[in-house]
Structure formats: C-alpha cells, structure tokens
C-alpha cells in the first residue's frame, strides 16, 4: 500500500477503535446504571482506544520511513562490485542517482554495466518489499494496540487523565517544533561557517577592512584572490541602522506619547489601526519607494546644494527603513506607556504638575525600560532588514560613515552571495553562512537583552 493510503487506513482504524471503545464504555455504564458511574465520560474511553490504535502505529510508520532509504541504499551498495564502488560522497550520490533513474526508466539501460542494472532491479524489488512489510507491520500494530486498549478497559479506568496527558504531550511537541527548527538552522549555519573559517582565518573575517568575495573559480583563472574582511559590511549595516533609528525612535516615541496621552478615543481608534497597517506594508514596497523616489530626491537635493551624492545612498535606505520601523516602535512604546499605572499620573497631577511635566518626569522614566527594550527589538529588526537595503543601499563595500555614500550591508551581501549559480564549497559561498552566523548572534544578543529589560520592567508593577 502507498504511504498516503496507509495513513488513511490507519485513521479509519482509529475511528473504528474510537467507536468500539465508546460502545464498550456505554456497555459498562448500562451495567452500572448510568454514565455517572464511569470514571470518565464515554468519549474519553473512545479517544483512549483510538489513541492506542493510532499513535503507536503512526509513530512506527514515521520511524520506518525515516530509515527506509538508508537501509535500502546500504543493501544496494553491498551488491556493487569493487571497481565501481564510490569513493567520495559526490560519487556515491551520482551512483545512487543513476540507479534510481535506471529503476524508474528515466535512463535507458543501453550500454550500462550489468552490475548497475542488477542494482536497479534490486532497488525496485527492495522498495516493493519494504512497502509491503511496512503496511503489514503498521496494520498489525494498529490492530494490536487498539485491541489492547479496548481489552484493558474498565469502569474505573482513568481515561480522562490519560487522554489529557497525551494531549499535553502533543501541545508540547508543537511548541518545541519552532525551537528545534531554530536549533537546526543554527547548527547548519555553524557547520557551514566552520567550513568557511577553515579556508579564511577568523581574524581576517572579523577585523579585515576589505570585502571583495570574488575568488578564482578555476585554478588557472586570473581573478581576485578574494578578501573577506567583514568590517565594511558591519559598518554599513550599523550606519544604515543608525540612520533608521534616528528617524524611527523620535517619531515613534512622539506618536506613541501622543496616542497614549493626548489623543481622544476617536483619534486613537483611527490612528492606531492606520499605523498598524503601515507595519503590514511588504518591505519590498518600501524598497522601491526608497530606490525610485527617495534616493533620486536626496541625490537631486544634494547635488543642488553642491554635495556629491551617489544615487544609492545609505541615507535613502536608512530614512525609508526608519519610516518602516516607526509603527513598530510606536506600538511597543504605546503599550508600555499605557501600562504605566493611572495612579502614577494621578499622583503627579495631584501635586500640581501639568500634563507635559507629568509625561516628562514621571511617565517616560517609568516606561523607559520598556521603551529601551522596544528600541532594542527595533534595532535588531533594522539590522536584519534585507529588502529595502538590497534595493536602495547598493553593493559597493565602502568603508565609510558618510551617509551620502554607497554602502552595503550584511544582509545585502548574503543575498548577492547566494543568488544565482554557486559552487557550494567555495569560500565565496561559504562566507554567506559566516555572515549569517554573525547576524544571528548579534540579533540574538540584542533580542535577549531587550526581552530581559522588558521583563524586568513588567515586574516593577506587579
């Protein structure tokens, strides 16, 4: 049976198991004179039997599927004569591909070594076998499990608690999914970065002042030897983030203060959703706004003032990124300002302070940790932002803090390094992972600090 059909079959069996479990508990209830004499409601008994039937068999299915390919390949490999036995991973993959294609008929068998033809035939056979084996096994486990669950039922059985436990485990599994994914990403990035640092010394990467990742693809090619100093990229990232924050922090904070302290409920009910919509605009839209509207504007203005401005300036990207981040900051700051207890305002007002004195001297200081936390979160967003800088900041890795110059950022370089055909073990490509790792660490650190700060702030008023 095909795997998908098998899963459907298991589901049907579980449904049947539910029905039988339900019926049996009903039977118990009749004997005892009512459902209230059972430990749990009949649905729980049904669910418990269904879980006994479905859970072990599905688990078994997934475990077997995970190992099926490896076992089959091992078995195939043992039948391959020594002279064509693969010596490297690349050769091994090639060989397996070939056998696969022969087996599926995508490759004609003419002029192919008989050993390979044998292997292809074996492959089909093994697949077939394993499929049958698996079907039988899963059905057996499902039937057995279901029967076991049904057999062990009694009126005193704590079915409700058991189902509850399994449900909790299932929720935990879902919750850990995201964590494991992050861990997986981190591990893969670390792994590739280590490969990069085998080719390029870590000190050059961290402290080198020049970034030009062009390496010779063939040994005889005349070309750059490649230099991987990440300082210009990080400087560029910081420059643009800094410009963005100088726009976003004051504007976001002011609008939050206005919304939280001055705006009437009518204005608030209109402005707040509007700001949230702004936060939902795709960054690519901001990107072309930056590249096609803001950048030329800045260039023309600058030129008319006698400044030399490149058409892809850090200023343009930073300004637009700042606008993008305003709603982020204002909504976070709005929340923390609103979280400052009303009694704090009353205390200040009752002392004869004006509204703005109260805001400046009591509310902002009280909300400051939360605001700082929000700003740090915003910084890590600015650092990780990609689309706007790809479109508006440029590619030249200049070591400069002049906002009118072209700079490039870490994210832009990662994109350009990985777009298009790449050789996956060249230093050039691998450097993207090293950059990614650095970016990950920086934003992780920022987020960690930010969350700590915000948490500490929350505790203050509890």
């Amino acid at each position: 049976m095909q795997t998908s059909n098998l899963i459907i079959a298991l589901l049907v069996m579980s449904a049947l198991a539910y029905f039988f479990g339900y019926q049996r508990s009903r039977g118990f209830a009749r004997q005892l004179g009512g459902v209230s004499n059972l430990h749990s409601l009949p649905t729980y008994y049904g669910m418990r039997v269904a879980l006994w039937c479905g859970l072990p068999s599905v688990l078994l299915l997934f475990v077997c599927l995970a190992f099926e390919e490896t076992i089959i390949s091992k078995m195939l490999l043992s039948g391959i004569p020594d002279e064509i036995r693969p010596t490297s991973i690349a050769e091994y993959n090639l060989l397996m591909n070939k056998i696969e294609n022969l087996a599926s008929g995508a490759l004609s068998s003419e002029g192919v070594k008989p050993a390979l033809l044998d292997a292809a035939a074996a492959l089909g056979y093994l697949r077939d076998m394993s499929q049958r084996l698996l079907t039988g096994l899963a059905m057996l486990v499902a039937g057995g499990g279901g029967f076991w669950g049904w057999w062990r039922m009694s009126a005193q059985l704590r079915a409700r608690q058991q189902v509850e436990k399994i449900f909790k485990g299932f929720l935990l599994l879902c919750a850990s999914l995201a964590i494991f994914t992050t861990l997986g990403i981190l591990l893969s990035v670390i792994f590739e970065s280590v490969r990069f640092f085998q080719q390029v010394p870590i000190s050059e990467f961290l402290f080198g002042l020049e970034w030009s990742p062009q390496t010779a693809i063939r040994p005889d090619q005349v070309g750059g030897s490649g230099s991987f100093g990440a300082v210009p990229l990080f400087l560029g990232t910081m420059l643009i983030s800094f410009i963005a924050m100088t726009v976003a922090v004051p504007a976001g904070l002011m609008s939050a203060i206005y919304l939280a302290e001055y705006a009437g409920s009518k204005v608030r009910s209109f402005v707040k959703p509007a700001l949230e919509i702004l936060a939902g605009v795709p960054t690519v839209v901001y990107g072309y706004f930056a590249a096609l509207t803001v950048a030329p504007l800045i260039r023309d203005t600058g030129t008319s003032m006698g400044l030399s401005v490149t058409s892809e300036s850090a200023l343009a990207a930073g300004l637009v990124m700042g606008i993008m981040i305003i709603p982020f900051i204002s909504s976070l700051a709005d929340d923390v300002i609103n979280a400052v207890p009303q009694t704090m305002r009353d205390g200040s007002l009752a002392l004869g302070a004006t509204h703005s004195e109260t805001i400046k001297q009591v509310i902002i200081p009280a909300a400051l940790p939360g605001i700082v936390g929000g700003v740090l979160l915003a910084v890590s967003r600015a650092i990780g932002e990609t689309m706007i800088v790809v479109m508006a900041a440029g590619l030249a890795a200049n070591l400069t803090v002049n906002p009118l110059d072209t700079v490039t950022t870490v994210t832009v370089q990662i994109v350009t390094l990985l777009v298009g055909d790449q050789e996956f073990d060249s230093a050039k490509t691998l450097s993207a992972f090293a950059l990614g790792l650095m970016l990950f660490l920086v934003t992780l650190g920022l987020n960690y600090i930010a969350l700590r700060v915000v948490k500490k702030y929350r505790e203050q008023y509890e």
Partner: protein
Amino acid sequence: MSALTMNLTATASEENSFDSAPEQTVVEDTVGFPLVDDPKIRARNASVFYGDKQAIFNIDLDIGKHEVIAMIGPSGCGKSTFLRTINRMNDTVDGCRVSGEFLLEEDNIYGSKMDVVELRARVGMVFQKPNPFPKSIFDNVAYGPKIHGLAGSRVELDEIVENSLKRAGLWAEVKDRLQQPGTGLSGGQQQRLCIARAISISPEVILMDEPCSALDPIATARIEELIAELAENYTIVIVTHSMQQAARVSHRTAYFHLGKLVEVNETEKVFTTPEHKLTEAYITGRFG
C-alpha cells in the same frame, strides 16, 4: 442551592423593611450640621455627572479650618467623586461634569481665575493605593517643590525634603537610604512617603481617599497617629471604609448614600446616636 435561595429572600425582605419606613429612607435634606462658620471649603448645590449618569446630587457641605472630616458610606455612593471635586482631579476623567459652587476660602475652585496647578498645590491628595514614583525616596519628595520652584538652592531643597519626611514620620526610617527607590519601601512606608510628598508643597488641605485600605493594622495605626498630628496644621478630608478609623481620627463624619449626603454630625454623635435611619443602618452593619 436551597441556602442560596434563603439568602436571597433574606436580602429582599431587608430591603422591604426599608420601604416600610418611608419617612427617612428617601433623602430629602442633609440632617445634622453640614455647615460651619468661616469654612475652609464651601460646597453648595454640588452635583457631578459621569456622562449622563449623575453620581452626586446637590450636596451642601462646609469643611472647617484645621478640621478632620471623615466621609463614610457604602461603595459607589460617591465619596471619591465628591473628594475629587475639591482638587479638580475629576477634570482628568473623560465625560465628567461638575456643577455647583465650590470655594476654597474666598477663591472659586471652578472659576475662570483659578489655575488648576495652583489649586492642586494648595489642596494635596493621598490615594488609596500608595503610588510612589519610580524614583528615589529623595526625588519622590523633591518632585513637588521642584515643579513649583519652592527651593532656591540645593540646601533649601534638602531642608524641605527632610522636614516633610519628618512630619510624615518617615525620616528616621529612611534618612540613610534617601537615594534608594521609593518603590522598595514597605506598603505603610510607601503611604507615608506619599503623605510626605503631599505635604512637601505645604498645602492647606489634604484629601485622603481610603489611605489605609491597602495597609496592615500596624501601618494603619501609624498613619492614623500621623493624621492626628497633621490636623494641627492642615484641613484634612478623609474617605474611609473603616468606621473605627473615622471614629478615631475625625471631628465630624459625613455619611453618603447613593450620591446624596445623608447626615453630617459630630463623629461621636454619628456613631452613638445617628439621626438618620440610613446612617444607623450603615453603622450597625445592616448594609455596606
């Protein structure tokens, strides 16, 4: 189940017993002595509305100089609302409207010449829950004087802070830790800090809205002592849920019921021989 039903009937019949004594369950005029000679605060025909809902109905009340007056009554009867009309804290509530005449000595509290900032400097307030600012103990007390420019120099400011803390009975406990956060004090100390904060700008009147309801009995006793001391220099209006407290600290007691001022009398009289049926019902614990 049956106990609950019984309870319900019991309450219902109690309400009926009120209806059967009609002469004094409908509040016509305040009984007792609501008016005094040469008052500090004079309220006439005072009404307060939250939107369309009236919370205070035509109250006439005088508060004497250096008097401690207690306001009691069931929850939601408008004690806080009336208290907050005196320093115009109701201004900060959306949709709240006040009518009637309010005088602080000769000055019209709601008059166009009255500056809220100046009014609140003359009428201080202590709230139900201690609300120190998240600043140091020193800065909490220095906040008011700084805003009103009461101190010409750092030395003067130090003096004001020290005096206020002393008068609030907190100086001995905090003089070595003035730079530590005020939020780190115990509840009772925080409330005394708030009192020090209120008297730091030398107000004439101090309004206290259930100042002890979040405190333990020892801290409460400490605050009550303090109120007695403060009465020498200030006029104090205190809202309280504790009748013992009202009896201990106040000269006169005002009993509020559903937004109306039912009875104002010497505190002792209110608690021994109340004039009004509703007052009697309240102090004997028939409802609350």
